[in-house]
């Protein structure tokens, strides 16, 4: 096994407040890694640092052999790391099909081409169709994304994230706000799409976490207090204390 994503002594301040307080974390190739922790622990902030949305205050982020610290989001994306958002972040005025296709274009070498018809690119169309099939939105392809029901928007969020074929995928609370059946559908989807990928998922639903993850890291107040296999995490005292009074299993 080899490390795909490495965080070294990562710190992030917003003004005087330190939100990420020295995080060291290594994600191995092909693993499904869950990050759990209470609300406000800094999980989304960690994603924002990795994906280039926010600048790090100090520390290093490495993607395979690239130093991606403070690189711009599109550069990091082109290196094969893609993320979803906790708050649905799609292209509301465009159709479902167009949304997914936007995720496909760069990876298919379309770049900024303003001289070739996008509909004429068979590979792009096929890839978009595949993604639509896998997120079960093929029959809603013409609907403007803003009109989709919430659960479908969350599926589309994942669809856009994986459309570019990134092999490191970061999902931020993909099942938040969903019913049991919807959650089951998304978990199946995540399992399917993460087959030959490295997956990092922030998730609150513990049954999902223990069902899906090969490894679990626990983030509390900007620090990783444990990073281990699900079984060991379950038995970890520090983790139990951090989650005291919640429905942690």
């Amino acid at each position, binding site marked *: 096994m080899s490390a795909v994503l490495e965080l070294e002594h990562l710190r992030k301040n917003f003004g005087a407040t330190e939100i990420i307080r020295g995080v060291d974390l290594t994600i191995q190739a092909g693993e499904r890694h869950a990050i759990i922790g209470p609300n406000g622990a800094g999980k989304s902030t960690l994603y924002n640092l990795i*994906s*280039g*949305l926010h600048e790090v205050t100090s520390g290093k982020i490495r993607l395979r052999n690239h130093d991606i610290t403070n690189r*711009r*989001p*599109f550069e990091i*994306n*082109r290196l094969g790391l*893609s*993320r979803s*958002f906790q708050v649905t*972040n*799609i*292209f*509301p*005025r*465009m159709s479902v099909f*167009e949304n997914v*296709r*936007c*995720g496909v*274009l*760069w*990876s298919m070498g*379309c*770049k*900024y*081409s*303003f*001289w*070739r*018809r*996008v*509909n004429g*690119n068979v590979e792009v169309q096929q890839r978009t169709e595949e993604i639509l099939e896998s997120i079960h939105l093929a029959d809603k392809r013409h609907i403007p994304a803003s009109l989709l029901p919430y659960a479908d928007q969350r599926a589309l969020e994942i669809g*856009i*994230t994986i*459309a*570019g074929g990134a092999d490191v995928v970061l999902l931020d609370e993909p099942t938040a706000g969903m019913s049991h059946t919807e959650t089951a559908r998304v978990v199946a989807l995540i399992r399917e799409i993460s087959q030959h990928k490295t997956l990092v998922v922030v998730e609150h639903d513990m049954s999902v976490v223990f069902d899906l993850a090969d490894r679990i890291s626990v983030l509390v107040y900007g620090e990783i207090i444990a990073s281990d296999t699900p079984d060991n995490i379950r038995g970890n005292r520090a983790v139990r204390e951090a989650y005291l009074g919640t429905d942690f299993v």
Partner: protein
Amino acid sequence: MSMKGLLNNYGVWMVAALIILLVPIPFGSGFALSIASQMTIAIVFALAYNMLLGQGGMLSFGHAIFFGLAGYFTIHYLNWMGQGVVSYFPVSLLPLLGGLVSMVLGVLIGLVSTRRAGTTFAMISLGFGEMVTALTLIIVSFFNGEEGIQGDRWVGPEPLGITFGSDVQVYYLAGAWCFAAAVAMYAITRTPFGRMCNAVRDNPERAQFVGYNTQRVRWLAFTLSAFFSGIAGTLHALVFEHVGFETVDIARSGFVLFMVYIGGTGTFLGPVLGAVLITWLTSILSNFTEAWYLYFGIIFVTIVMYAPGGLAGLIFMHEPIWLTDPRLLRRLLWPYALGLASVLVALVGIIGEMEMIYHLSNDITGEFVMNLYGFDISLRNTVPWVICAIIGAIGLALCRKSFPLVAQHWHQVMHEARERVLQ
């Protein structure tokens, strides 16, 4: 491709080409043809402007600089050709050259202005607009101040006897370029860049996370828009054989925003509608009334408030209905006619009052007589004031009655269309 397929895919374009070709037959007179030429120019500029506003979500208050500067360049180039300073370049291809000049300017200015979208972009565009307008008045040797510069498009060899000396020939030149530019701009909306332009407009944050540099996308949109604006500006210079600071100033920038917004930013057709309608209105209104700018303001505010999709938005609002069953539209005919008639009655009254007020405050003869709707009236007489007020009041009362009726029928028909689709 089959005949039917051809018609489906290119029918609209064939009709457009046919219109451009046939216009000089009924409208061959100097005045009408000049308006037709202005329309083709306005269409190109409006479409170019909508590449920014509608497609890319960038609101510019200074886009006329790319229109006007290409115009200045063109006039100078014509004169230089006449003097033999520069080598001959076919006049029919000058729009390409003018477009390239504006494109280079677009690359440079866009580098600065497209780093940010939204308010920052709008403010920077305003700044550049003011700067260039000031320059046209400062650098007299190139821009010749308020007078502007003149040129003669009739230079060089005359292939097939085409000199562009006549109005018809220059109309066809503008028409051909209008057609080509419109096709090109439409094609661009269907490319990867065109799609990402929309994506960056809708959600610039997310666009970065699918691998696109949003600044690059905006910059490219800006550059391409400048190119097509330059084509429009060149055509303007060729048609009028004159350019002045009014081709670059804020008023022109505002006017194209007007056209595009009134026509509708959301569709490709919108700016075309706006350009044709506003050019036509300008030419007739400015003949009949001096207060026409006021009326434009009113139209603009009304559209912004009640029909933010513009005229095209109003038309395409009916798309679900005609896709379901065009016969349903017939049920909207008489409510619409009623609504429109009410508005017209109200307008006759209100415009009458405004014309009289305008005349009253601008009367330098001291006689206070004017011609309103073909009647010679004296403003000292209260009768015309009262009559216009009554007509206006009746019109407004009719509007209050007919608008709910229009809304009611609209909802009924929409409801029925939806029912039929769901069946």
